[in-house]
């Protein structure tokens, strides 16, 4: 196998930085839409390598950060029911709901289990037929197919004590909402590599067509990110000089075929349909959620359990929503690093390891 560590080669990185410097005329603000990019940019100190006039904004790309508080409250309530085993990816357990978190619920006696794969939840369901096993359906298009594949397997095997609390989000229409809000000046998107491994290129094409800005689907190594910035700047230059139309380009070609993963998309379409989703600190966005189709409603934990929760209480003064819309950088929040740290987070952007505030805190503001 090709050594993928080559994508960290500092000599090549230096060349790419030089090229970025040469291409950069005037200021530009590019938004990375994926939490894994947010982490990689901070971890590799990309902001410190490139000209100051290029701003990298973190978008709403961390599924944990954008899970609505009311959904977290409901998941905690379901976890508290008798005979329920509540299963989830690890990132979710620390996120504070209005009154507690899944981790606190666990310490108070709820059976909350952190799993690596949703398939493990199916195993637990098969071994505990007298219990209800619920999986937290949190994630973008990278993750939702893994959970939906598990639902299909549950159906096939007749495991009916398994269900999923659907809080899935989809990316492309959320980008539209950010652009439509008109508040943030965005000169191009670094599109998420692993979401795109599933959805392919087409779902982003409305962005250059309708909003006249470039998109580049980027990988996660430092060279991938630098090269993607080169591509965004090259498109911008070709547009300015020769009036060339903006397009969606793929830098991460090794992992993203143009059509994405048709098998995964077919599974998603079989079991779910697009619906309005509530994004934490941002609000409702049409067609950015996945809800169960009627034929699969038996697997919908939000229907299986009749849960009523009080209206959610957002943490006072947290500007996470504005950070995720690209309106503010994390260190512009008065609580950043003072009242709000990874050890005692106030808002979701500091809780999740992929949140913009957590990345800035861990690797140094502005890196």
């Amino acid at each position, binding site marked *: 196998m090709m050594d993928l560590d080559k994508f960290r080669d500092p000599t090549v990185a230096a060349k790419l930085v030089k090229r970025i410097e040469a291409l950069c005329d005037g200021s530009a603000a590019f938004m990375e839409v994926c939490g894994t990019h947010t982490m990689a940019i901070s971890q590799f100190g990309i902001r410190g390598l490139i000209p100051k006039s290029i701003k990298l904004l973190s978008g709403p790309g961390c599924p944990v950060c954008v899970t609505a508080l009311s959904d977290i409250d409901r998941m905690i309530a379901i976890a508290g029911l008798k005979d329920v085993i509540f299963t989830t990816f690890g990132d979710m357990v620390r996120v504070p709901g209005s009154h507690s978190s899944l981790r606190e619920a666990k310490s108070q006696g709820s059976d909350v289990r952190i799993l690596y794969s949703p398939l493990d939840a199916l195993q637990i369901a098969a071994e505990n037929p007298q219990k209800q096993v619920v999986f937290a359906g949190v994630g973008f298009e990278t993750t939702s197919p893994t959970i939906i594949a598990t639902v299909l397997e549950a159906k096939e095997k007749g495991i009916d004590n398994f269900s999923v609390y659907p809080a899935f989000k989809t990316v492309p229409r959320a980008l539209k909402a950010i652009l439509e809000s008109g508040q943030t000046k965005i000169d191009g998107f670094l599109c998420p590599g692993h979401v795109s491994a*599933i959805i392919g290129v087409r779902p982003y094409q409305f962005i250059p067509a309708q909003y006249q800005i470039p998109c580049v689907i980027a990988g996660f190594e430092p060279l991938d990110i630098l090269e993607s910035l080169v591509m965004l700047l090259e498109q911008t230059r070709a547009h300015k000089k020769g009036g060339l139309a903006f397009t969606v380009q793929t830098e991460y070609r090794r992992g993203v075929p143009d059509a994405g993963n048709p098998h995964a998309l077919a599974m998603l379409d079989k079991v779910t349909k697009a619906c309005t989703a509530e994004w934490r600190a941002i609000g409702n966005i049409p067609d950015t959620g996945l809800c169960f189709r009627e034929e699969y409603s038996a697997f919908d934990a939000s229907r299986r359990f009749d849960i009523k929760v009080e209206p959610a209480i957002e943490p006072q003064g947290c500007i996470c929503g504005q950070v995720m819309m690209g309106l503010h950088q994390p260190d512009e929040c008065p609580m950043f690093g003072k009242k709000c740290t990874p050890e005692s987070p106030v808002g979701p952007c500091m809780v999740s390891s992929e949140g913009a505030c957590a990345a800035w805190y861990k690797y140094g503001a502005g890196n």
Partner: protein
Amino acid sequence: MCLAIPAKIETIEGTKAEVDIRGLKRSIGLHMMPDAKVGEFVLVHAGFAIQRIDQDEAEETYKLLENTGITIS
């Protein structure tokens, strides 16, 4: 959360595959990649193969980057 890591498929049985992730052996689901073959590299996320890693594309991308020119016209 959308982290996916490269793995090499070693054996396949139905929708399950044994893979090697930098020396670590794991069992993953091939539900989304029913035509994956032994010896291929895939991206693994949450216990599933979600996509193939195209080795030729990887080489090509790297070559392109290595030959990056600094001057622009």
